[in-house]
């Protein structure tokens, strides 16, 4: 008889109703609230716009840095001759290579040391020969015109390389700076407006 009495007890039925509905409300609130928040987040993100990144410090769009070893290997690959390269501050490069010169009526193997400077003239890169010397020979030869014939081709190659980088990136880039320290040489570029 006791169970029947307790089942019909009004206090117990109120307690059960409170607990049952509270649990139902909790579940519904949790699910509905979660869904509501997700929908709200989705709604706000649908109307959102993408802001461009803020530039922290003035920096180039692109910077390419070449090491002394790499530059030496690249020159050696191009010339087919061993070339020793020394990058100097002030955008200067000292290169030493073996060649043959007509001396005293016969071709003689000599070592030539040349000092280049890279210059940025407007958006174009130019290679200027500052000095050329025969290594180990004290004869003062006039050699500053040594590469006069080759320099336009070198300059054209260098600027062609810049154009190739532009094409690879699918945009027009212009050189805006260059620099060097004891071991590296770098080029900086920006997208053309």
């Amino acid at each position, binding site marked *: 008889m006791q169970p029947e009495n307790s089942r019909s007890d009004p206090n117990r039925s109120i307690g059960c109703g409170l607990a049952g509905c509270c649990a139902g*409300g909790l579940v519904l609130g*949790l699910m509905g*609230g979660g869904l509501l928040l997700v929908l709200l987040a989705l709604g706000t993100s649908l109307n959102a716009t993408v802001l461009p*990144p803020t530039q922290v410090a003035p*920096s180039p769009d692109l910077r390419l840095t070449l090491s002394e070893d790499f530059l030496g290997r690249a020159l050696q690959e191009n010339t087919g001759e061993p070339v020793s390269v020394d990058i100097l501050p002030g955008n200067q490069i000292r290169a030493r290579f073996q060649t043959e010169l007509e001396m005293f009526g016969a071709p003689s193997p000599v070592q030539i040391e040349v000092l280049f400077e890279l210059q940025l003239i407007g958006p174009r890169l130019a290679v200027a020969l500052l000095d050329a010397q025969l290594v180990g020979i004290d004869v003062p030869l006039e050699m500053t015109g040594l590469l006069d014939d080759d320099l336009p081709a070198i300059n054209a190659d260098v600027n062609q390389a810049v154009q190739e980088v532009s094409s690879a990136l699918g945009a027009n880039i212009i050189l805006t700076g260059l620099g060097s320290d004891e071991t590296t040489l770098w080029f900086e570029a920006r*997208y053309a407006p």
Partner: protein
Amino acid sequence: MNLKPSHVGCFGFILGGLLGLLAATSLLIWLAGQAAFPPLAQPVAPPADVTLFFSEQTASRLASAGGPEPVTVDFEPGGRVVVAGPLDLGGLRPMARLGLTLEQQGGQLVSRLSWLELGFLKIPAGWLPSDLVELGAMPGEAINRELPPEFILVGLSTTADGLTFYLNSTD
């Protein structure tokens, strides 16, 4: 006070609903707290033949090139990057922010999704479906395809300005 069971039920339902809403909000706040980048040590820049720096503007421009809507790329130190742009989600294209980490692993660049932010909702990658998590690997794969084959990636660093690749010649 004479309370009817139906009144008590309504009261319980409202109380439960409010508690549920509070629990859902708490859960989302807790989720947002979990959605953080993993701690990554910024590797020391290795000696390399060539280093290539891309600013945030350049990376954003390259990332936007594939689609009609702009995508912005925001680098942070420690190989962290936040990519913001439209995301295909069940036919909708909400603006989302993806928190990614970039790491160099054996000559390859690996990107992983850390979190996704939709509006005010920030969800850690562990709570997202696998197809969205796999989306995080795409930037790394795309960059690997663009790296010149005559070079191998030996390092990677990110700063607030941009991303630098350290490359060695394979010759």
